[in-house]
């Protein structure tokens, strides 16, 4: 009897320790990033940090351009990607014959596995020159980054939307069809409203993917540390700025990069919070 209790005790404590290590890792991460960004807040100050000018030689460490870049490319990626992704999910769940469905699902999964550097490289060598010749600009910028991000969020949004649509009971759809609703009416008036919370989660998770993406965006965004004049003029995002500057910066400049990291971290945490809230609403609706 004693032996059993001992073993229980050991298993319990081991699992507890493992869980603590994970939690500790997250806490330490936030702590470290926050600590490293302190000099930026104390020496440069928040006003300077959130200004629009990045000129370290002159003591200016503003991240507003990069924050704007991040929000713009993320929004652009979602704007382009969401209709395609939800459209695909609708096709997959409502219309596709079984064979096409399995092939397409496989394809979407494959797309999810494409390394971001490959997408960025394709964007840089094929898409950017194409935009350049079409618009006469450099070809890099928010438009190019948005298109790449759209391709990257499509698998995420499609897969989760598909689950959300499949979770709507068949009986709801049958009821609509039996009332004389056409397929489109059934989709618009019954399926989409019933799946809405799940679709929202899909978009938010896609947003999470887009907001933190670095490599693919870095290849097509510019680079330039100024507000873009158009959708096809060079700029920067938080992630690409950190990537480019991190090797050669020290002191307050380095610290301001950590401050950008902190902002990014807070943005992602906000997104997770949003997912939580939406999921909870979903449960109370059932």
């Amino acid at each position: 009897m004693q032996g059993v209790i001992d073993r229980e005790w050991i298993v319990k404590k081991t699992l507890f320790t493992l869980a603590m290590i994970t939690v500790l890792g997250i806490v330490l991460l936030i702590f470290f990033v926050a600590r490293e960004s302190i000099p930026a807040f104390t020496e440069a100050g928040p006003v300077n940090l959130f200004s629009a000018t990045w000129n370290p030689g002159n003591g200016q460490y503003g991240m507003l351009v990069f924050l704007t870049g991040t929000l713009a490319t993320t929004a652009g990626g979602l704007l382009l990607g969401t209709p395609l992704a939800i459209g695909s999910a609708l096709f997959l769940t409502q219309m596709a014959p079984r064979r096409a469905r399995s092939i397409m699902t496989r394809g979407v999964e494959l797309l999810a596995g494409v390394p971001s550097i490959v997408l960025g490289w394709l964007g840089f060598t094929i898409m950017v020159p194409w935009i350049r010749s079409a618009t006469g600009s450099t070809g890099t910028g928010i438009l190019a980054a948005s298109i790449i991000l759209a391709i990257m969020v499509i698998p995420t949004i499609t897969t989760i939307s598909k689950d959300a649509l499949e979770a709507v009971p068949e009986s709801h759809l049958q009821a609509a069809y039996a009332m004389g609703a056409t397929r489109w009416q059934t989709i618009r008036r019954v399926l989409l409203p019933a799946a809405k919370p799940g679709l929202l989660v899909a978009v938010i998770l896609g947003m999470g993917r887009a907001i933190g993406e670095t490599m693919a965006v870095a290849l097509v965004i510019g680079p330039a540390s100024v507000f873009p004049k158009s959708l096809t003029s060079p700029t920067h995002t938080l992630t690409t700025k950190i990537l480019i500057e991190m090797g050669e910066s020290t002191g307050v400049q380095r610290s301001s990069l950590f401050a950008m990291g902190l902002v990014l971290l807070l943005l992602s945490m906000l997104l997770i919070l949003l997912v939580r809230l939406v999921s909870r609403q979903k449960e109370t609706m059932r």
Partner: protein
Amino acid sequence: MHENGYKFELEEMDLYYGDFKVLEDVNLEIKKCCITSIIGPSGCGKSSALRCLNRMNDLVDGARIEGSVVLDGEDIYDRNYSVVGLRKRVGMVFQKPNPFPKTIYDNVAFGPRLYGIRDRETLDGIVEESLKSAALFEEVKDKLRTSALALSGGQQQRLCIARVLAVQPEVILLDEPCSALDPIATQRIEDLLSDLKTRYTIVIVTHNMQQAARLSDYTAFFMIEEQGDPGKIVEYGDTNTIFTKPTDERTERYITGRFG
């Protein structure tokens, strides 16, 4: 105008799902403003037969009909026949109550809105009228704007009936509407159907023989000979005769509970 007292006339109807023959040689005349019940053991194709009447089988991959199904003189499987129009005239209530995850009001207003009614007052009137006809209005009149999913099973099923009534159908098909309900809720549905039959033609599939006997004017008994065979009508006639003096020995054995 087609006037012989029959709403539906099924003639030598076969139903296939792919290569599988589900029903064979179904001949059935369904009288106007009567309740016709379809009884039979599980898997005999009685629900499939019901779904032939509003072409819900169209949603099944590989479903196909031979023979004819005539509604008011028109073959509903005719190439030019409008399925949407058919389903407006022939409403359906399912085995498990399936209100939409919307408010009570929006559930009842779903059909009218589908057919383009937008006017607020008209909709209000239809919703109230339909809920009254479905004997539900008194229970829900103060919570029309709350979720339909908060209602009890019996109330949900009456809401589904109200949802069908809201588009003013001519026929109501019910697929074992009481199988998920307790006896009191069942009683209320049966009372309701008896009231409704003066205005609507009602076809009900039921597992419950007492229900068929209590409720219906005509009864069709379906069965399959052996596993894998298609379902057929064994006997069809007025309910009294079927339950008191069945001509077929198999009908008698079924209704007296000796198999099925």
